[in-house]
């Protein structure tokens, strides 16, 4: 349905533009005074053509409620965007199969896709397009990268359109915005939670780490993730920081870094790369130096290190034992979802992009049930006040948002590469396997 509508819109534009161009052609013949003026007119009318294209007619169809998904579908981040789309489509199909929004007489949800592209400017343009051309939207989800979400929500906030996001940045919900709802724990919160959780996992394996090394690249997310650790967490837990290295991606050679790790003999290594090639270099070198495959436990942050793409460049053995702290992950209780994702889209496992976006659609559906009408303001109000009980798809906490728009008690998930698959090992209620913790 979406495709048909888009095709119509595409067919509409050139027709209007064509008329404008023909008109310009006639004027050209008449006025020969100044070519410059002509060019001005062409530019003018071309832009006018844009303005004249009417937005799609507003169809107030009570049997259908539109929900937006503003994610990167092209460019550098198209792959995560595509996975987010899978999660959304699965949710929408299930919601509709279960009878749609009951309070709205079984109205079906309809997904409106918008491509946020690969730049902040494109993301903001897409958001402008979303609010201008889809006035019927009741809520949206997006936009993967924090900077895209920041830009897009500047638009949705002004348009009063509630937006759910899986982005981590604390800034997203520090701006006093009223229409943004952050379902993941913020990066600041994740950084605070991660170290105690990792120590808990180690303790469960009857091991108590005393020395830790940190290697991080100099990107925003990485730096902010290790900051609370260095500032107070390590001290509080009585752990010594024996190595603290920051590098600028991409690495040419990881040998010096890994040699330092070997010399420092840490009990675990926090390693925060953003670029896959950096991850590969360091992990390969660790293996070469006899520290790989969990002999020095490696802990990362974020989902990049657990994407299926990792296996294209790295052998599963190199990744064995590598852990990562992520906002959410396909876990225990999501087996049917993971099976459907595999069957329908051939995705080997369910990353945060899929599960969080899947969950977003359900949250919107629940908010619609509470709002009782297909109205964005009512949905926003419902999101602000609802308490949907313990969270099923996001780790920890409840389906409830505080006054900043942050999900109350949002937790994190620890995943670990085991035999070529990143599986959830924490929290216990979601864990699909026991964490492997080598004691050297």
């Amino acid at each position: 349905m979406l495709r048909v509508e888009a095709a119509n819109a595409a067919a509409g534009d050139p027709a209007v533009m064509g008329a404008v161009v023909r008109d310009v052609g006639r004027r050209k013949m008449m006025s020969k005074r100044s070519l410059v003026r002509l060019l001005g007119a062409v530019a003018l009318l071309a832009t006018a053509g844009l303005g004249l294209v009417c937005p799609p007619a507003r169809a107030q169809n009570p049997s259908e409620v539109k929900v937006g998904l503003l994610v990167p579908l092209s460019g550098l981040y198209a792959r995560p965007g595509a996975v987010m789309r899978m999660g959304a489509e699965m949710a929408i199909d299930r919601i509709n199969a279960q009878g749609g929004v009951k309070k709205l007489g079984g109205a079906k949800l309809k997904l409106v896709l918008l491509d946020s592209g690969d730049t902040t400017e494109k993301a903001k343009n897409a958001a402008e397009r979303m609010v201008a051309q889809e006035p019927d939207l009741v809520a949206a989800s997006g936009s993967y990268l924090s900077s895209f979400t920041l830009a897009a929500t500047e638009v949705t906030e002004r348009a009063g359109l509630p937006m759910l996001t899986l982005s981590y940045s604390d800034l997203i919900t520090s701006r006093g915005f009223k229409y943004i709802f952050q379902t993941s724990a913020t990066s600041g919160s994740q950084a605070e939670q991660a170290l105690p959780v990792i120590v808990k996992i180690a303790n469960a394996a009857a091991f108590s780490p005393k020395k830790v090394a940190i290697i991080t690249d100099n990107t925003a997310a990485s730096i902010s993730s290790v900051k609370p650790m260095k500032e107070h967490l390590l001290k509080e837990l009585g752990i010594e920081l024996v190595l603290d290295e920051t590098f600028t991606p991409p690495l040419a050679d990881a040998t010096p870094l890994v040699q330092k790790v070997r010399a420092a003999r840490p009990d675990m290594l926090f390693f925060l790369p953003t670029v896959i090639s950096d991850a590969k270099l360091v992990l390969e070198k660790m293996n070469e130096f006899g520290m790989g495959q969990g002999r020095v436990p490696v802990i990362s942050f974020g989902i990049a290190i657990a994407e299926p793409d990792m296996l294209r460049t790295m052998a599963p053995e190199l990744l064995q034992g590598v852990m990562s702290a992520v906002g959410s992950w396909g876990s225990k209780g999501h087996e049917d979802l993971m099976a459907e994702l595999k069957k329908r889209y051939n995705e080997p496992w369910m990353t945060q992009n899929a599960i969080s976006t899947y969950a977003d659609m359900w949250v919107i559906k629940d908010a619609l049930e509470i709002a009782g009408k297909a109205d964005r303001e009512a949905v926003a109000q419902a999101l602000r006040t609802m308490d949907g009980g313990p969270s099923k798809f996001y780790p920890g906490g409840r389906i409830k948002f505080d006054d900043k728009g942050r999900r109350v008690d949002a937790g994190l998930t620890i995943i670990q590469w085991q035999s070529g698959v990143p599986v959830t090992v924490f929290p216990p209620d979601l864990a699909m396997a026991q964490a492997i913790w080598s004691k050297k």
Partner: protein
Amino acid sequence: MRALRSLAPFFVFAAGYAAIALIVTNSYYQSMLTLVLVWASFGLSWNVLSGYTGLVSFGHAAFFGIGAYTTALGQIHLDLSPWLLIPAAAAFGALAGLLIGFPTFRLRGVYFALAMLAYPLALLYVFEWLGYQEVTLPMKRETPAAYMQFADQRINTLLALFLLTTMVFVTRMVEQSRFGMALLAIKQNEAAAQAAGIDTIKWKLRAITLSGAMASAVGAFYAVVLLVVTPVSVFGMLVSAQALTVTLFGGVGTVWGPVIGAAILIPTAETLHAELGHLVPGIQNVIYGLAIVILILAAPEGAFWKARDLAWRRWPKLLADGVASSNLPGREECGVPGGQRARSHPHLPTSHSHAPAAAPVPLLSVGGLSKSFGGLRAVRDVSFDVPAGTILGIIGPNGAGKTTIFNLLNGFLLPDGGQVLLDGRNLVGRRPHEVCAAGVGRTFQVMRPFARMSVADNVLIGAYIHAPTDDEARALAADAVGRVGLAHSAGRLASELTTRELRLMELARALAGQPRILLLDETLAGLGHGEADEMVGVVRSLAQDGLTIIIIEHTMKAMVRLVDRFVVLDRGAVLMEGSPEAVTRDPRVVEAYLGKKWAAYAQS
């Protein structure tokens, strides 16, 4: 003002644009209207440096980003309004331009472009390191207007239109003053520009300072429009590329180029993105890329120039009107003394009489001049005097060091030893434009016209050196054009001229600088028989007007009837010096360089 009058078409465009902006209520189209203007303005800022000087900058994102972060950080940390911060950003941009230009202008061509690439990349990492990976402009719910946060996006578009108008106006001011002329001259031929008396470093620094200020102001406004600033979104490669793309597409070196480029490319890219992005992800970039490739192939200099060339071919009247009105506004050329002289030209002298024999004090005195290139001693201990009002001919076979001597005389090259005295003052060590200012004009063996400019403008470049005002420069240029007999062709483009006319034009450009001594490098080369005679006539008449001339030439036939004295060079050293009769009869010269044919001619 001339700039204002010439911008009438732009004001029509701006008024129409504003009208459309006011009608459009759809916020998405409105933001498109704003972005077109933003990128057009950015293209214009790039154009001021790269379009006019030809020094391609791949690093304009450096200025853009500085501006964007000025707005963002100024508002976050100091709670200042963009109304203040945008002008402040322009000041920072100007400073950055100066700081960047100073070391980078030592480089030329592709090395300059690559060096410029480094600045935004370095700044990108600096801002990441400073912890400014993502900053947003705080929303001002109480006083939005004071912080340029208008709920009605039409106001943004109008602000952007004001920004663009400012940029266009500044550009046009530059274009129509000696600033723009100097930049265009640098672009087309830096050596010729220096020889014409233009201090190229000074003008280039001014250009990058202005360009940096403009780019930075645009970046500052972009932050207001986008509200989110990340290092990649303002210092990234794509930002620098955007400036190049809109300008190259629309047309380099004209105010219209970036405007046309942005007006077509920005909406096209966005429409493709919106309509196709979710159907076949990525296809929009393929189509966009192909469209640009096709246009660049069809119109390598940009849409504007292609359209203009087509229009002129179709409506030739536009050409005459256009050039005359834009480039020769003061048509007073007939009023200056040169005008009359022009009409008396060209006349071929029938009898050949040499200039006064007695000239006790030489105007130019060259002593012991030497220059080596590695092991090659190109010029060895060359000495000669040129009395005022005489014509000296320098002859010798290829590689004898003739042009090298000229390059030593006018400051292109620094001699290893020796002195060059003009009226007793040593010129050695001075830069070419200073030598020009001192009174040494020159032309080139390989002609170096500024092809895209009219004859009058070509000559005008040379006239600035001794003209305090632009009007005086125009008068001097018109005079010089008249003296060489090109008055009737003043409005034509240099690219349309014949070799003879180009030689005359170069001569006029040198004359316009009011030289005391003129260095002519193979001025007769490539001319037909009659044409050479005409040129000889012009040169002689200049000498009769009191000008001192040194001429390098192969064409012996014309030379013997033109010069007062010869200096004959052999492998960098003076072989002999003397009158034409003496030289052409000297057996060594005849045998070694000229052959028996010339000896026979000279004796007949």
